[in-house]
């Protein structure tokens, strides 16, 4: 197992940040407050999460874990919904933010645990909780990027879309370009991460395994597994969400219904 980090060394690392704050003060960069608040938030949030995870893994109670997973999906939905400059009004807006990432994280975690890693029992919290969090977080970033791009592009190309419709095209054909742009943007971080892994950066999970003594040849296989799942999970979440977004902004008569979009 990897050695524990002492509180003294943590504090030492924190001093690096204090130096930054001092520098910012001297140079009048005006970022002291932001850096300070973000650092304090990080410490408080991670401490809380650490205790929750520790408790969850210790109890090994799948029902309790399900509740925690649902709360996590709720937070992720809230984050996704808060991000774009425009959003679909009402319950539909919440649904199209939450279902894609929720379904994707649940499906991918289940697949990874039950079919590939197969811990005993298959829902072993030590695996389930961190994997679920990682998959959900990646799906969240992808969906938020995709929705922001989608709503912006639709708003900008409203006339071109309706132009297609007024020449007898179906709404699917009329909207295909904004859909493509949005899906490409939403999946880009996941695809870039795959393409750059190993060359530009070594992922944290792999570094952790190597530090704790696992052979790099085993660690890379774990990493490939994770990358496949992250990319597939993000793509699934993005696609489920865009289907709902298209559905929310059109109607049975194949009209573009931007009146359902709320600007903030």
């Amino acid at each position, binding site marked *: 197992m990897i050695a524990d980090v002492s509180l003294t060394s943590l504090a030492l690392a924190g001093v690096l940040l204090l130096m930054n704050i001092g520098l910012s003060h001297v140079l009048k960069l005006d970022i002291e407050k932001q850096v300070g608040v973000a650092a304090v938030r990080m410490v408080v949030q991670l401490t809380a999460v650490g205790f929750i995870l520790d408790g969850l893994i210790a109890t090994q109670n799948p029902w309790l874990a399900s509740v925690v997973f649902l709360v996590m999906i709720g937070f992720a939905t809230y984050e996704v919904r808060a991000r774009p400059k425009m959003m679909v009004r009402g319950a539909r807006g919440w649904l199209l933010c939450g279902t894609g990432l929720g379904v994707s994280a649940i499906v991918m975690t289940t697949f990874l645990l039950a079919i590939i890693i197969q811990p005993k029992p298959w829902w072993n919290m030590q695996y389930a909780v961190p994997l679920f969090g990682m998959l959900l977080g990646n799906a969240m970033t992808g969906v938020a990027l995709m929705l922001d791009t989608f709503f912006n592009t639709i708003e900008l*190309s409203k*006339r*071109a879309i*309706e*132009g297609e*419709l*007024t*020449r*007898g*095209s*179906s*709404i699917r054909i009329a909207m295909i*370009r904004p859909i493509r742009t949005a899906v490409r943007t939403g999946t880009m971080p996941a695809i870039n991460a795959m393409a750059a892994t190993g060359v530009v950066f070594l992922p944290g999970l792999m570094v952790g395994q190597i530090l704790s003594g696992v052979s790099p040849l085993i660690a890379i296989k774990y990493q490939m597994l994770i990358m496949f799942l992250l990319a597939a999970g993000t793509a699934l979440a993005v696609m489920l969400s865009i289907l709902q977004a298209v559905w929310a902004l059109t*109607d049975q*008569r*194949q*009209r*573009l*219904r931007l009146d359902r979009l709320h600007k903030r």
Partner: protein
Amino acid sequence: MAFTFYGKTLTGLSVPPTTIEKGAIIGLSGRSGSGKSRLMRALVDLDASEMQLALDGVQCFKMPPQTWRSRILYCAATPAWWDSERIDTLFQTSAQKELLEKLGLDRAVWSVPVAELSTGEQQRVHVARYLIKKPDVLLLDEPTSALDKETTATVEQLIREFARDAAVVLTSHSPEQLDRLSTRRWRISGTCLEETE
């Protein structure tokens, strides 16, 4: 072909029961903001309005929306393009290319993205995209607003030819143009559409 409709548009314009037939060119006038475009949008079922629409007795909602919008075309006042669209990909047959030449669109601009052409060129390409179709009804919203006198005359002649096989509804800020082309006149006054003359 008989296109019949009545009801209310999204801007609250009351439309009495009306029928239009092949060969008609209807000049639609009304002040700016009176709801001319909204009326046209309602007629192609692009707005979720309270209009009752029927073609040859078949109600709009009984037809797939693509069928409805292929039989009744709406050429909006403002052209809009996707980034990559060029004339030589939009128009393919020789008859279509002949139309472009009639409209004075030189071959030199055919391979340029349409979005980069001048306002007048864009308007001609825009209108041409609808004139190459064979609908029952064509709704033209300000089709010559950015054109010079000569090109306007060409477009007017094309509209007349088009109206041999279809009905045309036309808006224009030039009363003279409506006088020259129209076989019937509609006017929006207040919240009512009325037939004049």
